[in-house]
């Protein structure tokens, strides 16, 4: 039996938090590329029109101008859909990351949970793209509460650029309002001794549900929220490898270059144990109801239960 979940929008939490921070911090400026009513930066824009810049459908100049504003000392948030920010890879690479300016990119509508807009918009590669850039840090908040804390944290940070990946769909609330975000630290939502699922985003909720089901099969699953993907919590990963012997990674992202790759690298270098990467194979998404697409692509809760159980029972010699 599934409990009734409380769902909340991460992008709305972003827009709300930004407009609260804008009150106290007059140094904050926000840029968007004609998607502010969807990314929710319009909440800031309506309150502080002088510090809100709608750059039009022109992501390259938005990112370039973000670099200039940041170099001039402003606290910059820049938003669009995740897929469109990747238009500007080389602008981010040179003007943001090589300059090492503390621009905060907060992008929405990532992954297949975006739904009906389809594969052109459902980016599943961005965590890999952004993690590969020197100086760039990558965070995927798990719920609205974590989103608020991350945005608050970034409004005070001045040492590097950040990529914060949000979604269109409302996600289950997992943290209470006392939650505090710590960069580079994971949160163990559920302890377990048999196997660990390390996840981010919606996959943390899936993993908690899968763990309940697997409990009935006498498999004790640890569930870790790895919202800080770069820097990543190496200690928690190595500890999980030592204590549970097997690790499943789960992400709404390609299994290439995402969390699965990062965890595999750390495990392989430090304490080799079998790792199963659960996520999108090397394919594009499709149109459909966002939450139905997970089952369609065999990356839903039941698929996670099956994959974890099989992997747990599999013997490696």
């Amino acid at each position, binding site marked *: 039996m599934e409990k009734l979940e409380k769902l909340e929008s991460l992008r709305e939490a972003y827009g709300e938090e930004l407009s609260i921070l804008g009150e106290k911090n007059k140094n904050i*400026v926000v840029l968007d590329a004609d998607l502010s009513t969807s990314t929710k930066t319009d909440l800031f824009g309506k309150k502080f029109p*002088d*510090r809100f*810049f709608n*750059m*039009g459908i*022109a992501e*390259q*100049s*938005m*990112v*370039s*101008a*973000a*670099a*200039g*504003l*940041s*170099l*001039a*000392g*402003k606290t910059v948030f820049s938003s669009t859909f995740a897929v469109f920010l990747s238009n500007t890879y*080389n*602008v981010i*690479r*040179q*003007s943001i990351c*090589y*300059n090492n300016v503390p621009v905060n990119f907060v992008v929405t509508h990532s992954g297949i949970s975006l739904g009906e807009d389809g594969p052109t918009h459902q980016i599943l590669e961005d965590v890999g793209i952004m993690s590969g850039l020197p100086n760039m840090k990558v965070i995927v908040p798990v719920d609205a509460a974590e989103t608020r804390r991350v945005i608050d944290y970034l409004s005070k940070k001045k040492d590097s650029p950040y990529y914060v990946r949000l979604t269109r769909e409302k996600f289950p609330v997992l943290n209470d309002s006392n939650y505090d975000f710590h960069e580079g630290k994971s949160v163990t939502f559920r302890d377990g001794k048999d196997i660990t699922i390390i996840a981010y985003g919606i996959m943390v909720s899936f993993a908690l549900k899968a763990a309940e089901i697997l409990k009935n099969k006498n498999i004790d699953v640890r569930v870790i929220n790895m919202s800080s993907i770069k820097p990543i919590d190496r200690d928690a990963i190595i500890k999980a490898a030592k204590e549970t012997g097997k690790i499943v990674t789960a992400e709404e992202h390609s299994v290439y270059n995402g969390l699965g790759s990062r965890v595999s690298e750390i495990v392989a270098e430090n304490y080799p144990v079998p790792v199963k990467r659960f996520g999108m194979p090397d394919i594009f998404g499709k149109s459909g109801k966002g939450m139905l697409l997970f089952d369609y692509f065999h990356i839903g809760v039941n698929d996670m239960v099956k994959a974890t159980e099989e992997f747990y029972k599999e013997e490696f010699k």
Partner: protein
Amino acid sequence: MEEYNPNYLAGIAKEIRKKIIEMTYTAKSGHPGGSLSITDVLTVLYFKEMNVDPLKPQDENRDILIMSKGHASPALYATLAVRGYFPQNILNGFRSIDSDLEGHVHRGIKGVESSTGSLGQGLGVAIGFAIASKLDKKDNKIYAILGDGEMEEGNIWESLMAANKYHLNNLIAILDRNRIQLDGFTENIMPLDDIGEKVKTFGWDIINIDGNDMGEVISAIEKAKKSKNKPTMIVANTIKGKGVSYMENNPKYHGAPPKNEEEYNQALREIGGI
């Protein structure tokens, strides 16, 4: 026009040109052509028009210059060194493994505001600075130096629109119209035609000048500084490789230093270095 000493500025430009030749010849690589074309503009900016102080490189009211055509690093580095931002002997290390003078413009160098090299980004970066200055009610000026080949980049046209939208009269773009890009002449690679007219339709003021005539450069910048509500682009018609006869208007020297000692000595002789 304010009083200025043309001989003084001409002497500075010679010194900078000589250093461009020395740097690229020593490094056996680099981009002398587009450095020599923009030297007169840089000389006017750093030795007459810009409010900058090498002793206070982070002064909050300083004018800002973004060298969007980052391959003209020899020209910018040499200008900064001659202006006193760092010792001139540092220029000898250009492009070498034990030097901070990276091949393309690098923000780690004193006086450099933003790293550039991948083209098309500097105008947008300058727009960010210009917006910030307006928010902070500063009356400093923001300069962006663009290559003409660079005008082929889409980001430039996005940024041209944004500068118009935000009425950035504190932004002065200077287009180094030397008519040559890496593969050859701009009009053969991708015709720019009357590029100033195109930019004008994007809401900018345009001033056409001979960009190797420092008197004209000064007049244009002083006019641009007085703009009430529009960004200005100064279309500086220049000669690529200006000052070295075998480099002038020769696409080969976009990204190649003097080939041998004979060419090296000839270049310095023609510039008036020795």
